[in-house]
């Protein structure tokens, strides 16, 4: 006899539960956590290096590096003298809550203020999987073109911050930053947008200031909860 069985279950619920576990751990440690996403080569690792240089005197930072293969990025970040752990997804196109959870043992969370997770280079899949982060930030480089918001809407919808990178290349590429901004804001009016160049350093001060504020807000929350 054929049975029809109603289920109505969220396919990603298992990941959501793990992400919530991670979120609780991060909150307890008073950490601010960002999930950094972009297509391959947009400048995630370069942005991390620049961010570490800008904030290392005042903020204790750690990095989780997600890549399909290799430990190249973790070695780059490790040279900066911050805590870093490399995650290899072994073919998977995104990080998920479980991978993050399994990497936390390798980090001394009590000695961190800011944890930055570099997701696998991919403009599609990472947007669908929460990791327990406070916010998602995405990088789009001008070399990728101003049409990307139209093609990868979910990532723009999910992100709190958009960093438009490689603005030093603007004279050489067909990219209308005004259009890029407009298209991104049509998808998500709350996006905070920074135009930067990780090569020249242009625009990175505003990004660092913004991030510094988020970290100090988190500390204030934690102190408020203690008193």
């Amino acid at each position, binding site marked *: 006899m*054929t049975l*029809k069985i109603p289920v109505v279950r969220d*396919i990603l619920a298992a990941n959501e539960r793990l992400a919530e576990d991670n979120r609780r751990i991060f909150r307890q440690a008073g950490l601010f956590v960002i999930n950094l996403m972009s297509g391959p080569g947009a400048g995630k690792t370069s942005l991390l290096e620049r961010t570490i240089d800008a904030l290392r005197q005042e903020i204790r930072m750690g990095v989780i590096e997600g890549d399909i293969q290799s430990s190249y990025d973790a070695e780059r970040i490790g040279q900066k003298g911050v805590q870093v752990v490399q995650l290899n997804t072994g073919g998977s*196109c995104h990080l998920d809550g479980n991978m993050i959870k399994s990497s936390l043992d390798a980090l001394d969370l009590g000695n961190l203020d800011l944890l930055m997770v570099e997701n696998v280079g991919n403009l*599609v899949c990472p947007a*669908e999987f929460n990791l327990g982060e406070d916010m998602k930030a995405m990088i789009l480089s001008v070399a990728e073109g101003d049409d990307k918001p139209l093609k990868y809407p979910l990532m723009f919808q999910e992100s709190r911050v958009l960093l438009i990178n490689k603005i030093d290349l603007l004279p050489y590429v067909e990219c209308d930053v005004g259009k890029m901004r407009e298209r991104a804001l049509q998808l998500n009016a709350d996006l905070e947008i920074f135009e930067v160049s990780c090569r020249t350093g242009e625009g990175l001060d505003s990004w660092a200031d913004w991030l510094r504020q988020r970290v100090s807000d988190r500390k204030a929350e934690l102190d408020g909860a203690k008193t």
Partner: protein
Amino acid sequence: MHEMSIAQSILDIIFQESQNHKVSRVLSVSLKLGELSAVQSESLRFCFELLSKGTLAEGAKLDIERVQVTCQCQECGSKFTVQELVFTCPSCNSPKIDMLSGRELSVESFEGE
């Protein structure tokens, strides 16, 4: 591209529910996929077929319902379907809107024996 992990999660749900309902063979699975979810139907079918081989869901048909992206304006309250990915209210132009549907990724039901 992450259809493989989505297909595995679907199977996990199906295996669990089959056990609960004493189903030994799954014939079809009904899914809801929002238009904004980054999942491609054809790729999901392919991954599901691959992963379900040798399990009680082998050969099961996937019935996929795609759900349009709809929103409600926080300012004027009007409800609308999002056209061409413009997330502003067509009535009053406000960008302050809540998404009502379009992100679905769920197993709705399945048929088995």
